[in-house]
């Protein structure tokens, strides 16, 4: 009788022994796993696939808009492309990718063996491919996918008085179903994060010693729990309107289309912070490590995060200034207020770097890129929040440029920073630093070439969501530059993919703590065993690993 034994924590390449297992066993292991690290990896893989799909859709739009009066795609396909691009990038790329980092790092950062509810965690993950499939199935429907933009305002997304849909077919209905599935997935994930942090922290880790990234994930989770059900209810009403004859949004029957906009943006604005807060957390992990200083104002950062979340639920109607149905002054004021805690964070980061011993690793470069891009995104946000100015900026490419500066800085710079920083912990191997620096330059040029011209044509009056424009309008040059910029971003993304694929096999062995970093995840081996920790250091500050590795600094108070 032969017995096959293997230890589950033998990840490829670490140590001398590499256990090979039959493909079927590996496959079953992955699809049935409840291990937070494997689920995190699967989140990252799923999000990358959807990023490629969303990126191709963006490419279709950039080709179409590159020259005036282009007829590369029909207007319907163009409308479907920007709708699906927005939906996929927000719900199927950014949120799962942040969940990937959260799944990997939150249990490690608080010193837990796994998430609070491992099975719920697996369920939340598997709803992502399910929701994505439901969304993409709409490409097989007779009238194609949803073409009414990711906001899906009635009356466009609704039915007319006589009951015919303005967007025929079931594209919108499948879209509603997909968003509901993805929303429930995020809600389950958020519950899991909160309970994990509340219940499973290592001894000695008080709430004010929890690493910043984990803090931002908790605040993000609370925002998700309080905003996602709102849009689920709103979309349920929209679905009932489309399919069962509900008249919620039809003024001729006593309904109110503005009501939908309130519901959507009550979710939609917190959603921005759901996407950007954890990225701020990632950056706040990286900048102190590569400045060789503790984060300046750890508590101030946490309170700034909490204030952003609280204020973020009071500003939704700044998306609706031009409806004329809201208090412009109030929402302009609360929107301005948000720049205060955001400014606090900017000072946290810059003051951390001040007089620090800065190391320009790839992770640090991307983190700095995030700071710069986010600053541009934030400042253009102040323009939009100015009630009077917004009437001329609303629905122009200026707005498109603004939120791409915010979200692309979050999505690409912040996440790349996070992966360059944490890839050694996840795989036991380093990503190639030279490729990382080339990639940073490509991405930095690409993002600015793509979105800066959009800001200028937007100021010149180019409306968003238009499939083409005439030559006399003079938007040709800006759009052409923007389309070339897209190529640079695509190259940067492909370079990153190659870097990951090659480094997984051939990268330099990293060791447990290649960056001499501070937070608890660096106390275990790289990659961590399935139970995460053999031993925990004493946790006496928010930087337990630093305290352990540099007792002389702790003793002299020179921390």
């Amino acid at each position, binding site marked *: 009788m032969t017995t096959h034994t293997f230890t589950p924590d033998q990840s490829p390449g670490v140590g001398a022994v590499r256990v090979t297992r039959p493909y079927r066993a590996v496959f079953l292991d992955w699809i049935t796993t409840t291990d937070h690290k494997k689920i995190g990896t699967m989140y990252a893989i799923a999000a990358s696939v959807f990023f490629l799909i969303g990126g191709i859709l963006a490419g279709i739009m950039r080709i179409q808009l590159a020259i005036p009066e282009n007829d590369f795609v029909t207007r319907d396909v163009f409308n479907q492309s920007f709708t699906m691009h927005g939906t996929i990038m927000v719900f199927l790329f950014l949120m799962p990718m942040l969940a990937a980092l959260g799944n990997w790092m939150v249990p490690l950062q608080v010193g837990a063996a796994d998430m609070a509810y491992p099975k719920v965690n697996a369920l939340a993950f598997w709803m992502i491919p399910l929701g994505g499939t439901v969304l993409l199935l709409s490409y097989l429907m007779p009238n194609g996918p949803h073409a009414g933009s990711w906001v899906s305002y009635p009356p466009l997304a609704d039915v007319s008085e006589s009951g015919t849909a303005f967007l025929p077919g079931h594209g919108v209905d499948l879209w509603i179903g997909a968003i509901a599935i993805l929303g429930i997935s995020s809600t389950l994930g958020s519950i899991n994060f909160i309970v994990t942090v509340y219940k499973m922290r290592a001894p000695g880790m008080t709430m004010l010693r929890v690493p910043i990234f984990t803090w931002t994930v908790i605040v993000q989770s609370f925002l998700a729990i309080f905003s996602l059900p709102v849009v689920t209810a709103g979309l349920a009403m929209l679905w009932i309107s489309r399919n069962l004859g509900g008249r919620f949004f039809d003024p001729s029957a006593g309904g*109110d289309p503005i009501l939908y906009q309130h519901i959507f943006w009550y979710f939609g604005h917190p959603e921005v912070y759901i996407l950007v807060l954890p990225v701020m957390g990632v950056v706040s992990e990286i900048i102190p490590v590569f400045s060789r200083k503790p984060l300046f104002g750890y508590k101030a950062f946490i309170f700034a995060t909490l204030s952003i979340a609280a204020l973020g639920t009071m500003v939704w109607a700044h998306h609706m200034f031009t409806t004329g149905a809201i208090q412009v002054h109030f929402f302009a004021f609360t929107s301005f207020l948000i720049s205060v805690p955001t400014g606090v964070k900017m000072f946290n980061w810059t003051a951390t770097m001040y007089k620090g011993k800065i190391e320009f690793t790839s992770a640090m470069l991307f983190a700095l890129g995030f700071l710069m891009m986010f600053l541009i995104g934030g400042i253009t946000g102040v323009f939009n929040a100015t009630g009077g100015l917004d009437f001329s900026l609303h629905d122009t490419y200026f707005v498109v440029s603004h939120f791409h500066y915010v979200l692309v800085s979050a999505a690409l710079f912040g996440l790349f920073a996070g992966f360059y920083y944490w890839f050694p912990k996840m795989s036991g191997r380093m990503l190639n630093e030279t490729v990382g620096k080339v990639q940073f330059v490509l991405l930095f040029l690409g993002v600015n070439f793509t979105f800066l011209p959009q800001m200028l044509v937007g100021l010149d009056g180019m409306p968003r969501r238009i499939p083409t424009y005439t030559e006399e309008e003079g938007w040709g040059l800006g759009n052409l530059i923007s389309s070339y910029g897209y190529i640079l971003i695509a190259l940067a993304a492909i370079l990153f993919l190659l870097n990951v694929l090659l480094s997984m096999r051939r990268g330099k062995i990293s060791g447990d703590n290649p960056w001499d970093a501070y937070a608890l995840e660096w106390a275990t081996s790289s990659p961590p065993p399935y139970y995460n920790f053999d031993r925990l250091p004493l946790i006496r500050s928010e930087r337990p690993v630093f305290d352990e590795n540099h007792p002389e600094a702790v003793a002299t108070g020179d921390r």
Partner: protein
Amino acid sequence: MTATATPATVQDNEGFPLHQEDEGGFSMTVMGTVIFLASEVMFFATLLGSYYTLRAVNADSWPPEGIEPEWPLPLLMTATLLVSSVSIHGAVWAVRRDNRTVLTSALAITVLLGVMFMVGEIFEFSIAEFDFEGWKDGPPKGVAEGIVPGAYGSMFWTILAFHGLHVSGGIILNSYILFSALNGRFSSKNYQVLESASYYWHFVDVVWLIVFVTLYVVK
């Protein structure tokens, strides 16, 4: 049998426990349920907020002429649900004292009352004169042709239906709990699932009170 002394908590020199310990308060299951219920609160808040928004938009025709929601049956349903909240709390009370008889009978009563509530709600749906779009058999006597329940009907039935779906889910959950209790799964040391189910049921009850006041009292 020797008495086992409670082991003293091992502490380090600054007084922090060296073991992962239950800090008391919510168990993990109950805490997750409570956070989940917070998201459910937001779901119903959106529906009810929409109701009051549309009520304000149509201040002079809400409810539209000819509609007078009748409250006696819903009031009976309210009483049913309130009593069932008491009975599921009785089940939690019983399991804390390891009283199997009271536990199973209290759970059975809870399931039965839930089913009675749903029967009432289905009856309410069946006798409706109007639906989302308009009158079922043309406008009733004395109501002008142009007046349609439209937004009012949509909100009314959507709120009732979503609440009904939650009650139905609760009946299934409580039946499962009853089944587990009959199989002796719960004890005073292990009843987190039952406690979570009781919180869900109380939540459904509280939402109904608000729905009842909104749809039948305030209108």
